[in-house]
């Protein structure tokens, strides 16, 4: 990733972001990272997509800093094919208000990533059209990648046992 960022013009991005308060840093892998407040995220998304030319979204993911506060961090990485540049966005949010704006209207490919992030961390993406769980069963009430989630899970067999009890109550259902 270092190679692809040779000649990265940080000034260009900062100029486009204008008066949006961001904190620029260099990630350990030399990817430019902007720490943004949640209230400015929608604006930054639009500027990066339409003004700075980051037309490809690489990933959306969450980080759980439990027990530190603010607890969650959400990360986005975007790639510009035209400039061969990558940028990373990061924002910190509290556990009791784990909501960030969606980016799916600008990068539709982020839909699954945001669903996975919601599934694993319980971070809701406001404006996402279909924010269901991606990997875990939909009725499963816990978020496995949170730091306080036990290694062996919480009642992993609960939904199966409930289904099994219903099945036994009406045996004709199986056939």
């Amino acid at each position: 990733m270092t190679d692809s960022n040779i000649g990265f013009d940080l000034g260009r991005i900062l100029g486009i972001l204008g008066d949006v308060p961001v904190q620029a840093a260099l990630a350990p892998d030399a990817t430019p990272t902007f720490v943004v407040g949640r209230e400015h995220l929608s604006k930054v998304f639009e500027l990066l997509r339409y003004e700075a030319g980051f037309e490809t979204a690489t990933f959306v993911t969450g980080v759980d800093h439990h027990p530190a506060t603010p607890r969650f961090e959400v990360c986005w990485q975007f790639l510009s094919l035209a400039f061969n540049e990558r940028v990373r966005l990061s924002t910190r949010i509290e556990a009791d208000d784990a909501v960030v704006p969606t980016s799916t209207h600008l990068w539709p490919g982020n839909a699954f990533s945001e669903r996975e992030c919601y599934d694993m961390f319980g971070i809701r993406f406001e404006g996402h059209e279909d924010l269901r769980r991606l990997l875990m069963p939909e009725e499963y009430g816990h978020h496995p990648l949170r730091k306080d989630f036990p290694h062996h899970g919480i009642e992993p067999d609960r939904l199966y046992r409930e289904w099994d009890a219903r099945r036994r109550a009406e045996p004709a259902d199986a056939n």
Partner: protein
Amino acid sequence: MGSLKEVEAAASEGFFATRVDALVNWGRKNSLWPMPLGLSCCGIELMAMIGPKFDISRFGAEAARFSPRQCDLMIVAGTLTWKMAEACRTIYDQMPDPKWVIAMGVCSSSGGMYDSYAVVQGVDSILPVDVYVPGCPPRPDAVIDAMLKLQKRIERESPTKRLFSGPEDVDDRGTGKRTYAPNDAVPGAIQHTGPSRAGDAQ
């Protein structure tokens, strides 16, 4: 009723005397139709086993059907997740009696290396398993060995008894009695916050 002479005469015409149990078991054990439930990498070894090199048609079990209605041997090959468990149990329920289950590989036998919230720690917590095959994945030879052991087990069954007295109640076999307390061995882990089994009052 007839004399020995009559029996001998009948034998020369191509008849022989046997027990119904032995005859039925002979037929059953040599025509196992597997239901290949290939859930992960074990499924590849399962395909190799069915293919010409290892060739389970030598044991009459090459007719792998992809409809559970036509199968009597379920081979659970791979990692069973709790999300998949309902489908697995439904497939088992759709298979006509008599039916047998082989748990192929450590994942389906015990959860294997997936010591995790998402994986069923052994399919015997939802299904009655007849033969367990260790290995990750097991070689096709090992599964063929399991199949031969299952054939020996089928030889000892009593289909006529079952015919007259009905199938035994298999509800308890591997389906509800097994205790599931995964966090017990982990010091300091959060234990279950509620009853994990429906109807489990204790």
